[in-house]
């Protein structure tokens, strides 16, 4: 018997059409209880219309120490942005 209930991450969809957004976490014995508790704790003020719970051990995160290595290469790719291209004033709305 597990002595501790596992940790679950809670995601809320504020309304249909929007992504689920991470709201926080809680402990629960299983997924059904996690959803129940998430409803009770995280959606008491109409925060959303749908809940996702994911056991925290199933979330794999990038290492903060790798952030520079991972994201720095996108910084100098200015040609991925529309402002990099010179257009005459007549077609500025393109």
């Amino acid at each position, binding site marked *: 018997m597990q002595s501790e209930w596992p940790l679950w991450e809670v995601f809320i969809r504020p309304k249909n*059409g929007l992504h689920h957004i991470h709201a926080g976490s809680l402990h629960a014995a299983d997924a059904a209880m996690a959803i129940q508790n998430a409803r009770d704790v995280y959606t008491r003020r109409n925060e959303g219309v749908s809940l996702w719970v994911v056991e925290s051990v199933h979330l794999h995160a990038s290492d903060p120490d790798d952030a520079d290595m991972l994201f720095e290469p996108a910084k100098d790719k200015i040609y991925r942005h529309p402002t990099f291209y010179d257009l005459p004033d007549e077609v500025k709305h393109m």
Partner: protein
Amino acid sequence: MTTESLTRRFQDKIDQELKIEPKDWMPDAYRKTLIRQISQHAHSEVVGMLPEGNWITRAPSLRRKVALLAKVQDEAGHGLYLYSACETLGIRRETLIEELLSGKAKYSSIFNYPTLTWADIGAIGWLVDGAAIMNQVPLCRCSYGPYARAMVRVCKEESFHQRQGFEILLTLCQGAADQKAMAQDALDRWWWPSLMMFGPSDKDSIHTAQSMRWKIKRFTNDELRQKFIDMTVPQAEVLGLTIPDPELQWDEASGHYHSGPIDWEEFGQVLRGNGPCNAERLEARQRAHQEGTWVREAAQAYAAKQIEESKKVG
């Protein structure tokens, strides 16, 4: 609840501009229509890399090369967003890929035309991406949440695609006579296929009416095509190029350009697989998939081995 009352509730939500999300009840036909449309859209992004990829190694400058690389990279990503949105409807990625590779699934007919000169890369950015943006902006308001959200991301990223194409053509048009002639030739070849991108005319479109009721589509094919023509003609004037349509003229009464008839026979032929590059495109996708087999297998073997290793340590 009966299917009838579920269907009524579903349509009520749509009428109220509420979004449908994957776990919501939806009619089978809505699901099927979305799978067909989103997968065709995804396939188009993937096959669309081929005509442009043809010029990456021959881009005339480093500036042009990085821009083209970035654009083709975006298209691969857009294919991924769309396949993922499609999978939320309960179809497997493998099934979608099989349907593309077997020739069962369709993709945009425009990508069955060849890119013969560098100016074609400019024309694709200006016209093909211009037409795609015209189609995709209203899809950001599509009733199906995952598709709409994918489109928001795609439209944001694509905002540079059309501009880089226009810049290529503008440079050619301000260059030597040969260069301007090359730009004109590209416009001559790409204009009509670009207009065909919006699909059959409204009177022949079998899906339009239902898709409009479901708010998958917000405008008809002909409405979008007309918007595209109205937007593009003044841009051709900036370039100093002539649109290859002798009937094209501004119609004061309607406030739109009047244009000549589209050769729907050509459109039908390309759709049926008889375009200039249909066989070549499909063959390229099949080869890429086949040659990638060992990579997929190796990654799985490596992952399995990592699990074994961690068991030994644990």
